[in-house]
């Protein structure tokens, strides 16, 4: 255990990338997820089709493939660069890939939330003369968000764990699981304590998130 603790700065560095990946991807995937949901229920048929095709396509592809496409495809083959240093370049590509993937699950959760809103709410809003955007912004999305706090928490936990896939070839973000693998391979600390240490690190991130969202979901639940 001492050998693991003497390398604690590497562990902290790994988790700092994990947290950064999570925060940025969570923000972008939430925004994109709301946009996708709005498109999915919009009066414009083309936008509905577009959102459906995007969500169903990305949702059914493995995350590894999505991130490989960002890393090997857009970054290497197309030669697009997002930052000067390699570490931040791959970081932003990983954020794009994770956001593209996670937004589908945010959108699916939100759509499920919209489905729980009583029709009367929307009919009342329409009878008051609210337009589609007003209806969505003032009536539907606020209520839908409150019902999907729990599922969105699950999506966030899945995202925290999915950031480990950003260590794939072509990206290789130095996040926690990659640091763990490097410490295994370099033999600088025994494997078992290293694994337990990193596992505890992830549990510290995931378990409180789960309980917090469980608590929040109960607190903001709409009683119907």
């Amino acid at each position: 255990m001492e050998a693991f603790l003497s390398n604690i700065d590497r562990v902290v560095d790994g988790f700092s990338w994990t947290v950064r990946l999570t925060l940025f991807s969570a923000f972008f995937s939430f925004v994109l997820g709301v946009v996708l949901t709005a498109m999915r229920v919009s009066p414009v048929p083309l936008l509905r089709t577009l959102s459906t095709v995007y969500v169903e396509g990305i949702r059914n592809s493995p995350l590894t493939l999505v991130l490989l496409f960002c890393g090997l495809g857009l970054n290497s083959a197309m030669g697009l660069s997002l930052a000067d240093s390699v570490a931040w370049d791959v970081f932003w590509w990983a954020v794009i890939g994770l956001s593209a993937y996670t937004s589908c699950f945010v959108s699916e959760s939100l759509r499920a939330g919209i489905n729980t809103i009583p029709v009367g709410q929307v009919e009342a809003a329409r009878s008051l003369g609210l337009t589609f955007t007003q209806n969505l912004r003032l009536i539907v999305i606020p209520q839908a968000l409150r019902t999907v706090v729990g599922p969105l928490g699950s999506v966030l936990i899945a995202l925290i764990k999915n950031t480990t896939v950003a260590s794939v070839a072509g990206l290789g973000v130095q996040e926690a699981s990659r640091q763990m693998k490097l410490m295994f391979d370099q033999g600088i600390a025994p494997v078992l304590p290293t694994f337990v240490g990193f596992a505890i690190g992830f549990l510290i991130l995931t378990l409180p998130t789960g309980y917090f969202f469980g608590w929040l979901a109960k607190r903001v639940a709409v009683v119907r």
Partner: protein
Amino acid sequence: MSAQAVLFDVPGPKARARNRIYSVLSLLLIASGLAAIYLGFNRTLVMVSSPGDLTNTAIWAVNPSGQWAADRWAPFIDPSTWTNYVLPGLMNTLTAALIASVLAVIFGLVFGIGRLSDHWWIRIPAGAVVEFFRGIPLLMLIFFTMAIPIVMNQVFGLPPAQFQVTALAAVVTGLTLYNGSVLAEVFRAGINAVPKGQTEAAQSIGMTKTQTMWTILIPQAVTSMMPAIVAQLVVLLKDSALGYIIAFPELLRNFTLVATRENNVIPAAIVCAIIYIVINLSLSRLAIWLERRNARRGKPSAKATAAGGAPVAVNGAAATPTGDEAAGAAPSEPRNEPLPDTEERDGRDDDGTDGDGSQKS
């Protein structure tokens, strides 16, 4: 609210005109996005320095050194690519997924029932195991399984060569532990969703706890759990692509091998994505069909979020309903009350005997 059409009025002439404008605008946006992707992979995007360059026909022609050239796609018409790379990869993916599915269902049954045990010394360890494997990333489990020979060496002093872990074993172990833990929660929710009167009736005719579980509760729970189980299998199949990272020759790995050999990353990615999407979409359709069949028969479909305090951390698929129709077909099932049927039946069973008192128990 099931149909999206309630969100807006039937469009009149003005609204139709406005919708047409939005359609055209979004079409333009999609077209420019697709054009950027086309030019980027055609390796001619760099030649565009001003908007005027876009009228130059030379940049739109298929560049022989770009990703769209015909010979980049040729490997996928050649049968040897399919017999040497794609089909073996698909076989490995399906083998890993199939073994892991069976083991995960067994793992889930053991620990799901374990968490429902009356003995704390079974319940608490089972709960700890489930929460642990659900809370840490699958990739870490795979890395750790690969490193088990090193652990054996460090802890027991065994020579590393004596104990080998294949990539397949590592993938299957990781998938089993993670998805098994998620399935354990699904099973727990499904068994909890069986009306309480069933257990009481079984006990009153003298059945033991084991008999009650295996002959009364599990058979009834299985139908309500099927959609969630199938949805989790989609997650499992997708996650088998993580084998790529530890060089397990599954579908994605073999496609990257083709891509490196033929220098055709983009065609390979497109073909690979299509194969995954077709397989997973058919599995998702199966889950929706099962859910709709349950709704038709008036049975609830178990959601893994039903029992625990913390929401289930799946890849997102199992926690969300599977489609428009599925959500629309069961409007009497609000998400926060996954068991309306239970209460209804309890109420009916208890009519005239206990009244309201027993419903709260």
